């Protein structure tokens, strides 16, 4: 172990336990604590408009979902193109309560943390069920299995009267210790809830990766036959991975329901599943902080493209319909460029930047 626990420029690990530490140096821990404190403090100092608070809330929801997707696709190497449907399962768990008990029932308005947790568990059950084919299927075939879940979900929600045939099911405002949450503080309040969920999810996954099961995920991803030979059950590991992904997606879906104060089928389509996959790729598959970078990058890009298209629409003839092309074009282009030039995603830039600062003033 390095003698200086603040600035350890080099590899001083003497045991696996040492290497598995969450924070390598005290400096890392300090910076992280300051960063987290700032995330909690800034909304109190700079009052953002509801529009931007909603955008930030949306990014945080996506981060929770991508943390789940990264477990199954990034860490376990299993492709899933039905992630939005898992989110939908979580959201519709809340909606089911609203349909059965009424949208202002005490369970929805007061016991919301439990309901969010329950949504996560429902997502996990569905995730594990959908993950069962993963015991026998791989690659494209598995992708088709997850796609079929997306289709089944779409059909079920769209046609069952209980789910209002995909139309919006309203969810009431929740209660906090100060009373019923007003519209003015709605996004502000959920920012803090989401932030806590994101931090807890991040730590959960970080710790998970330090466990035997976490190492199993990587082993199965790299070579499931070799993993099998080492005594790991590849099939169960994959099912667990789907279950965990479903759990985080379910949580994200329930949070989406509460933030948007309603559940509608439109928010959980195949298009959303593809977008989440793109977020995971752009952020960096198989890295925890990639789950943070991806949603931030894609959602910011979308917002910028929207503003640019609006601006361009004012200058260019409206018949050109530039905005229709601009968003999907930029979205596709970003994914292709990342796959070509930076397949490890933004997380790799972060790794390079960190290693540079870690070694500073030495370059190598």
């Amino acid at each position, binding site marked *: 172990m390095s003698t200086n626990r603040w600035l350890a420029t080099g590899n001083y690990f003497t045991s696996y336990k040492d290497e598995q530490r969450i924070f390598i140096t005290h400096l890392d821990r300090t910076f992280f604590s300051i960063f987290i404190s700032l995330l909690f403090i800034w909304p109190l100092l700079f009052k953002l408009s*509801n529009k931007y608070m909603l955008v930030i809330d949306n990014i945080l929801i996506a981060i929770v979902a991508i943390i789940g997707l990264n477990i199954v696709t990034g860490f376990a190497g299993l492709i899933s193109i039905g992630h939005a449907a898992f989110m939908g399962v979580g959201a519709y768990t809340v909606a089911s309560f609203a349909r059965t008990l009424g949208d202002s029932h005490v369970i929805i308005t007061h016991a919301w943390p439990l309901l969010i947790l329950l949504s996560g568990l429902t997502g996990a059950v569905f995730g594990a069920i959908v993950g069962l084919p993963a015991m026998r299927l791989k690659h494209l075939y598995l992708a088709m299995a997850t796609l079929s879940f997306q289709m089944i979900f779409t059909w079920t929600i769209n046609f069952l009267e209980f789910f209002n045939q*995909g139309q919006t099911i309203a969810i009431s405002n929740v209660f906090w210790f100060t009373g019923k949450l007003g519209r003015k503080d709605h996004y502000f309040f959920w920012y803090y809830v989401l932030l806590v969920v994101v931090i807890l999810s991040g730590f959960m996954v970080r710790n998970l990766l330090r466990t035997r099961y976490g190492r199993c995920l990587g082993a199965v991803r790299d070579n499931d036959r070799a993993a099998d030979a080492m005594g790991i059950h590849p099939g169960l590991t994959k099912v667990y991975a789907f279950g965990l992904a479903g759990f985080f997606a379910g949580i994200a879906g329930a949070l989406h329901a509460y933030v948007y104060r309603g559940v509608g089928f*439109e928010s959980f389509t195949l298009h959303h599943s593809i977008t989440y996959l793109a977020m995971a790729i752009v952020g960096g598959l198989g890295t925890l902080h990639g789950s943070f970078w991806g949603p931030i990058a894609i959602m910011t890009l979308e917002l910028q493209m*929207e503003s640019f298209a*609006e601006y361009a629409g004012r200058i260019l003839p409206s018949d050109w319909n530039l*905005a229709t092309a601009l968003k999907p074009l930029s979205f596709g282009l970003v994914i292709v460029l990342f796959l070509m030039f930076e397949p490890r995603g933004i997380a790799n830039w972060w790794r390079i930047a960190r290693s540079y600062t870690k070694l500073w003033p030495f370059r190598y």
Partner: protein
Amino acid sequence: MKNMKWLVLSVFVATFFIVSCGQKEEAKVEEKKEAAEAMVYKLGMCLAITGPTSDAGDPMSKGAKDYFRYVNDMKLLGEDKLECDIRDDQYKTENTKRNFEDFLDQGIVFYLNYSTDSTQSLKKDIEEEKIPTTPASYHAGNLVDADYIFLPIASYSAQAIGLAEYIVKNHTGGTPKVAMYVHSSAFGRAPVADVKKAVAAGLDMEIVVVVEHGKDLDNTAMLKRLSKKGVQYIICQTTQSPVATMLKDASRLGLVAKTFGEKGKITFTGCHYTGGNDLVALAGPAAENFYWTTSFNITSEPGVWTDAQLAIAKQYGRNEKTAKSHNYSGGIMMAQVATEVILRAKARGKKITREALYDELLAMNGVNAFYPVVTVGPVTYSKTDKAGVDTLQLYAVKNGEFKSVGKPFIPEYTGKIK
């Protein structure tokens, strides 16, 4: 002498001070006057200018934009101006919600929305913010548990019931067999239950089947199946494109009735978003004898509405397709209603607030009904009636153009099933 000098200087300084203060006061009064004279009223509109259903949303946005420009250019509100921020949501509810929040931050007094899903999704926010809203979705469900949502024209349910009533009145030889061809969404399904209620309430018609269409490019099998089941009429509640596909297939199969209710053939009818010039352009000759109902006057018929609409479109450089679109009329009409309530509130000396505009909307009935030129009847609202134009007009395609069939009417069964 020295005192005299001081006295003169003091008088000069005092005079200068008083005059300059007076000027400042005058300037302030002038500013206040100007401020009092020229107010800017903010409105927000969010609709699908691009993406799905933008064929309807784009001309609608242009209609609203042009009318608001016209109001400002013609000084219809005196020195006051209307500032309507028109945003594209690409038919995504999440974008609509974000734009809506932005509009609220800007302090809008009136909101114009678009799709059924986004209207339903925003319902709670609209109610809590108490902001008068007119959506371009005419779904009757928008009005359930909503005080501040006002449909511009008759609901889809009223339109479909109107078509059903027309079928029953003009059908000869027993109970007409009808199929409903609807979009697989809240928008499409909206009138199905109400038409069934009308049948249960005594409308002598048999609904053989309700077809929720997908993205099929060929409807041969479906049409043959319907024909085999003896379906004589189809009521469509969807957008133009699937209707055009179906009409082309029906035309190829020789199933389209040449006269209303022709035996052994199918008469195709549709609600507001199924018809218009776009349908004729998409379906070509296959659109012939398609029956369509809406509350709007159309530009393929001469009238003061056509002249007015085309004049506005010309003034703001719109092409012929946009100028003649009934969705362009829809945009104009929504803007007209918003402008009218502001005008009325101003005339009463009220401060232009959401509440004042809401009150004006509720008072828009009886002798206070509003007559926009582009619709076939007056816009009336009250505490119990939140659908604007109750009157409908039936049109049919004749020689490649929609032409009026009969007089404007109000469906009877909409009241009976309430």
